[in-house]
């Protein structure tokens, strides 16, 4: 039986196991929305397409299942762009489906026309403009395959309106193979052996784990490697949760706002094992001074990540989980007791710290309280800025897929919609968005989405009346000239209530824990407005472009 393009699309999504789409209808996607009507697929109507892309992203990060977002042509499609770029930078598989003007109109500057495949070319893993309905099912199959395999990433499929309405036989391909795309999953045995030997010989080894550990579902294998060898583990922002911070081997995060002991360990190590991480500038600081004494090993599925910024001595291209499994079979513990003692000493001497206050709420305290009350088992989304860095420092992550944060692109406004996507995927989990007053206002209209679908996410606004990290940089590097970083804010409690969510106002430290508990207990989405110390800084900090050894602040 013949179906139209829109029906083929919906059937294909169902075949791919999609159970929810985040989207917003419009002229060029009406046939798709008509096919959705009554289909066994949940659709979440967002309030801005950027949120749809972030929700699909958050849904993936929390569940491991490819997220799907849907927008109309022109402005609908361009509104997805920030969300797609966010997913691209963090290797997150999402499928973005966009309506397009009918094929005869393409290129004519038609109403609501935008060349979205052209626009998204540098921020997608791949994209398609489907010009013939006969190609549609195959294209959807290919899109899901490309998005979720190898180093994952967003894939956009642009479907003109006449293609949505044209009829074709529906055959969904069972399998797919591409002559031009064959990711390497298995690591080279010789290289793995070389790494095992280097581990045994090393006196000061260090594991530096990134988001690849989580994407590859390799947290257990990483734990096994660390426990077998006794090698301490520091993680990137996106690696948090990939190794339990309750472990004595955990050094927390490294880099610009990393722990002192993690950065000292990087400076002193003689073997640095990068696992599913990409030696980003926020991690390395000044490249020429990064891990100066170390032999560098790097396990990554993406060959372009290897030796891109830092010269790697033992490269291993492959899926992190596969490589670690092989490595764990042959690896032996070296003699590193002196090194472990040294690190223990650093940990005692230079813990993460802040000055508690009896009258004013410290933002770090709020995060510690959320961490304590949720026992480190909630899903935590963050925005970008101080809220993000304090969360990385003070929330004790123990499980993979519990931190959702825009690491690469650094997208303010990411956290709240990402939290909604995560809660849709994991309805039984407590989901928090730890936000700043600036970031939250970038996408807070999604409160309407959360309320409409009873998606009970909790937003903890660390409200300091500033764009905190901008203000901090102005304080430290621009002589306290607070240019355009002060914000006059609305009453977030009233805003929450106007949308039909729970609003809680918190001004005193002793109110922090009860407010968190109240929000968690409420069946509603909730916004807690924590009025925190306005000029608190994130420490330590390595100034941008400086060596890690030039950490400032954060001493007890």
């Amino acid at each position, binding site marked *: 039986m013949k179906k139209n393009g829109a029906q083929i699309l919906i059937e294909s999504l169902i075949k791919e196991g999609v159970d929810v789409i985040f989207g917003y209808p419009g002229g060029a996607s009406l046939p798709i929305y008509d096919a959705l009507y009554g289909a066994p697929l949940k659709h979440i109507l967002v309030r801005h397409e950027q949120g749809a892309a972030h929700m699909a992203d958050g849904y993936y990060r929390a569940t491991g299942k490819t997220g799907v977002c849907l927008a109309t042509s022109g402005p609908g499609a361009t509104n997805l762009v920030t969300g797609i770029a966010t997913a691209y930078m963090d290797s997150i598989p999402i499928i973005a489906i966009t309506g397009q003007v009918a094929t005869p109109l393409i290129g004519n500057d038609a109403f609501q026309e935008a060349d979205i495949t052209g626009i998204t*070319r540098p921020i997608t893993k791949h994209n398609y403009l489907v010009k013939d309905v006969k190609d549609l099912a195959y294209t959807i199959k290919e899109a899901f395959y*490309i998005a979720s395999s190898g180093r994952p990433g967003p894939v956009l499929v642009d479907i003109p309106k006449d293609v949505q309405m044209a009829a074709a036989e529906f055959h969904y391909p069972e399998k797919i193979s591409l002559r031009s*795309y064959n990711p390497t999953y298995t690591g080279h045995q010789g290289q793995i052996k070389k790494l095992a030997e280097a581990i045994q010989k090393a006196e000061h080894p260090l594991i530096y784990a990134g988001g690849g550990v989580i994407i590859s579902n390799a947290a257990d294998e990483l734990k096994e490697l660390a426990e077998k060898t006794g090698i301490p583990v520091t993680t990137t922002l996106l690696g948090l949760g990939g190794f339990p911070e309750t472990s004595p081997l955990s050094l927390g995060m490294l880099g610009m706002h990393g722990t002192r002991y993690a950065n000292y360990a990087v400076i002193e190590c003689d073997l640095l094992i990068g696992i599913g991480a990409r030696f980003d500038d926020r991690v390395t600081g000044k490249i020429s001074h990064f891990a100066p004494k170390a032999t560098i090993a790097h396990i990554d599925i993406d*060959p372009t990540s290897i030796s891109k910024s830092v010269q790697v001595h033992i490269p291993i291209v492959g899926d992190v989980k596969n490589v670690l499994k092989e490595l764990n079979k042959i690896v032996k513990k070296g003699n590193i007791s002196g090194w472990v003692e040294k690190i223990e000493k650093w940990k005692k001497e230079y813990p993460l710290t802040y000055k508690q206050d009896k009258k004013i709420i410290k933002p770090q305290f709020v995060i510690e309280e959320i961490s304590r009350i949720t026992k480190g088992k909630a899903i935590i989304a963050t925005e970008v800025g101080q809220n993000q860095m304090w969360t990385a420092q003070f929330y004790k992550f123990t499980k993979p897929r519990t931190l959702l944060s825009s690491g690469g692109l650094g997208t303010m406004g990411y956290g709240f919609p990402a939290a909604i996507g995560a809660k849709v995927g994991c309805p039984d989990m407590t989901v928090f968005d730890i936000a700043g007053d600036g970031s939250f206002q970038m996408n807070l209209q999604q409160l309407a989405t959360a309320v409409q679908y009873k998606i009970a996410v909790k937003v903890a606004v660390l409200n300091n009346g500033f764009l905190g990290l901008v203000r901090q940089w102005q304080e430290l590097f621009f002589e306290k000239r607070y240019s355009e970083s002060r914000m006059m804010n609305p009453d977030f409690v009233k805003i929450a209530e106007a949308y039909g969510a729970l609003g809680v106002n918190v001004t005193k430290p002793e109110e922090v824990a009860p407010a968190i508990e109240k929000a968690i207990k409420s069946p509603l989405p909730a916004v807690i407005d924590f009025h925190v110390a306005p000029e608190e800084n994130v420490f330590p900090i390595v100034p941008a472009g400086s060596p890690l050894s030039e950490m400032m602040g954060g001493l007890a």
Partner: protein
Amino acid sequence: MKHTICCLVENKFGVLARISTLFSARGFNIDSLAVGETEDPSISRMTIVVNVDEKMLEQVIKQLHKLIDIIKVIDLTGADSVERELALVKVNTADAAAKSEIMQIAEIFRAKVVDVAPKTLIMEITGDAKKVQTLLDLLRPFGIKELARTGKIAMQRR
């Protein structure tokens, strides 16, 4: 340093745009790029000359390979290969004495005169980049009115 890279790519619309987007986004400098169908009409061959150092070259090759529509990337740097470029040059021949000199140069370089007009002629030259460049240097004093170069195409000997 100049490096020659050959790419076998899916012969689909948009592939060239993907490659040029990649080069501009990553800040790689293209000297020339030539595209055409291969013996298999579903595959196009691109010959790209880039001006980058060794470290950057490794990135260029890896990044090209990462593009979904690229089937194969061959680095011809230092390889035993045949390289050719074609150029059309319109030279000023207003001066009769100059004209015969120009014809002589063409003969030495085995360049073909493909069109003659009262005050100009068009010459076609094929060869490696060095040969083409030498001819152009010799013709320049007479006045080059117009120049079109294909960019290099290349193939490994074995």
